[in-house]
């Protein structure tokens, strides 16, 4: 199958009862999303992002054209068993508890009860709602509901994840976690379609984007290609002495180049996470979600487990064990190796910030600069993540994809 998602002249119009005021919600859309790609659908409010997703999922019928998912109709149970969907609002049953919610969706997938149980616990850990798992979802804040919404989208270990405004209503920490999760899932061979109007979200995680306006694609391409300022170069260095700076200026002047010497600003996101981490270190209580960054291990089996695929289910459900078991491979590597070093600092912060262990016990050790960071190898959750990411780093994407393709089809 060439594309995971393919739309052919997909068009959706609507008009009033008398057939007047025809409006094009989606207009002649031709999207092609490859396997293992993180694709961002960008656009202002009302540009047709959500309508496109609804058309892809068969919730709306196209006026013209076709929407193919895995080469077929997404309403076919064989196909939608491989899809995870997070709608723009977390449409959840208010009267169900978090655990019951996940159980309900697990049952819709026909998962055996043991698998379901293990996955639910792993997902609750992952989205940091284990402590409130028995509370009715109706009492959740928007961010918490969003987390449960995300968990339900992952319960079937989907090959394709469709996320409509995934960070909608989340605080910066939650937003960051979701972004990290997307990156991690992509590394495990998932295909992800993401719609958002928050540019930073898309920029951080997407391989390719399409900007929609008025239901039409205005621009489409790789993020890097679209954003690269080809006429400029940037040098980032650690603190330079005045003399070194003067030398560089001399060289640049000799080249007749326009240049700016500046001290780079921290990203507000990084700053915010650091501030909250400080607060948490002082053991301030919160009634909100306390998230870990542990990712349910059942979500795509890594290649390490490829040899054990005869026992697919056991592989899939090993997540909850991994969360509580002491890590075998301890490493202080940055959480996500491919991101910038600055990003890695955030990552560690995030890990320390969202761990369920008592934050007050953390000692700033091995932390870059003045940022207090919990020692990575003391937190089992981090270890799990490290273990996972380490494993992923050692394995090629292609291998991941193969294994997840097999595992996802249960």
């Amino acid at each position: 199958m060439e594309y995971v998602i393919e739309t052919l002249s997909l068009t959706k119009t609507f008009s009033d009862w008398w057939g007047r005021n025809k409006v094009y919600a989606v207009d002649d859309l031709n999207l092609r999303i490859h396997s293992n790609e993180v694709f961002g659908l960008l656009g202002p409010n009302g540009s047709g992002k959500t309508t496109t997703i609804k058309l892809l999922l068969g919730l709306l019928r196209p006026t013209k054209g076709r929407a193919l998912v895995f080469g077929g109709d997404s309403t076919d149970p064989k196909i939608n068993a491989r899809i995870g969907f997070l709608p723009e609002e977390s449409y959840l049953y208010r009267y169900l508890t978090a655990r019951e919610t996940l159980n309900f969706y697990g049952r819709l997938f026909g998962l055996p009860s043991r698998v379901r149980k293990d996955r639910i616990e792993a997902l609750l850990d992952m989205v940091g709602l284990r402590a409130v798992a028995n509370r009715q979802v109706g009492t959740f804040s928007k961010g918490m509901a969003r987390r449960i919404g995300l968990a339900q989208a992952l319960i079937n270990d989907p090959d394709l994840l469709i996320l409509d405004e995934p960070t909608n209503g989340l605080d910066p920490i939650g937003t960051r976690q979701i972004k990290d999760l997307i990156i991690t899932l992509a590394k495990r061979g998932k295909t992800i379609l993401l719609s958002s109007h928050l540019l930073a979200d898309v920029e951080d995680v997407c391989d390719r984007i399409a900007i929609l306006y008025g239901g039409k694609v205005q621009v489409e391409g790789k993020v890097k290609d679209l954003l690269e300022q080809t006429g400029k170069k940037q040098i980032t260095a650690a603190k330079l002495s005045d003399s070194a700076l003067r030398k560089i200026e001399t060289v640049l002047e000799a080249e007749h180049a326009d240049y700016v010497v500046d001290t780079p600003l921290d990203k507000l996101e990084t700053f915010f996470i650091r501030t909250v981490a400080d607060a948490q270190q002082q053991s301030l209580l919160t009634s909100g979600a306390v998230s870990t960054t542990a990712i349910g291990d059942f979500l795509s089996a890594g290649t390490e487990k490829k040899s054990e695929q005869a026992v697919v289910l056991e592989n899939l459900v090993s997540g909850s064990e991994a969360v509580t078991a002491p890590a075998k491979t301890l490493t202080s590597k940055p959480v996500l190796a491919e991101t910038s070093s600055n990003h890695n600092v955030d990552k560690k912060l995030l890990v320390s910030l969202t761990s369920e262990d008592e934050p007050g016990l953390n000692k700033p050790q091995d932390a870059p600069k003045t940022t207090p960071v919990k020692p990575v190898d003391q937190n089992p959750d981090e270890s799990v993540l490290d273990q996972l990411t380490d494993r992923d780093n050692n394995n090629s994407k292609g291998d991941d994809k193969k294994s997840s393709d097999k595992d996802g089809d249960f």
Partner: protein
Amino acid sequence: MEIFRMKSIWAIASNTVKQSLRMKIAVVFIILLVVLLPVLGLVTSGDGTIKGRLQTFISYSLSLTSLLICLLTIVVSIYSVTSDLDTCQIHTVVTKPVRRFQVLLGKLLGVVLLGCFLLLFAAVLIFFVTIYIPKSMGADESGLIRLKNEFFTARAGLAPTPVDVSDQVAQEMRNLQQKGQISPEMLSDKQTLQRIINEITLAKEQATRSAAPGQELIWQFKNVKIKSADSNPTFFVRFKYDVPVTRPDMEIYSRWAVGDDRQIKYGTPVKTRIAQFDRKDKIRSFYEIEVPAEVIADDGYLAVGFLNIANLNSSSVIFPREDGIEVLYKADDFVPNYIRSVFLIFFRMVFLACLGIFASTFLSMPVAVLLCLLVYVAGSASGFIMESFETLGENVGLLYSYTIKPIVSLLPQFDKYNPSQYLIDGRLLSWPFLAKAVLLIVCIKAVILLLIGILIFNRRELAKITV
């Protein structure tokens, strides 16, 4: 694959039950049932007799249970679908490997399960209160036996063999012609002729049901077969008097004879006994005469004679056409009959659940509820409605047969399949009757509605465009 399907249907069903309980929709109905049924048992008095109290209680309590469960079914079935649509929860359900019809079937199953549970609870409660009432009122031995024969039983009813009056009508016509009261012009006009014949037939037919003072009436019954485990089986002659002049407190003195009258006519010695009863009964009420089964002839023939005693009565007596006279005999026990009655309510509930699901696939909650209530009320008076449309329809012809008639015939006949009327008189609600109810109400009407609902639900867009 089949198990897979059932699993998701069960998931949706249990979610629907949880929804109705946790959103407190069912709570009101449950409380009402739990509180009202025992209260009814305490406060009903009927006509003061134990039987009257039992009749009132069983009739009121079953009607109340049926009403509450039907209303609950309507509300829950509609709410479970429309709330999913309104709050978009359906988006996360139908994007899972679940077909849309499975979603509807799951909802239906959930609603039916909830109603079933409540119905079972109410039925058991009503049963025990009913059993308890005679004891609480201190019924004596003979009273208990009477109740056993007339209430805690399941009796089949037999109508008398209809009397053929066509010969009498022909004779009367000849008489009238001879007297010159019917002219040849009247005979040549078909409509007039038919009207005359109808009137004479009616008069002659009524004559077979009425007795002036001193006159007697005889009804014949065929195939009276009583299967009973009792050593002294009995059956009942049930009757109701009417009189041409209204005097509500009027009482009729009568002599009844029940047995094989053929042996008297032909002068042979009496082989089977003929039972005789002298009575005094009020008009316009039902009475029952208990008769030993030995009076029935071997071939199942039975005659019932009534004499309007001349010296004591001043008015002629009419037996109403529908229910003037009837022979009742025990055909089954109370418990199985009661269980079948509960099944009738269950079928009613299943129909309404299907109707609710059907309506909610294309209507908003308030409109769907209104529609279902309308059907429920119309169904409860379907006999009347059908009859009136039938009369109206005679003049409209084709237009009626192709428009209103199919719609009216789709109405569930709740009044015809009403369990109270059977239990009150300890009448048999037979298995064939029950099977007919299932076939008509559930297998045909409910399934048709459900299929149309599924069709609509499959076709419609479940999301709205928001641009």
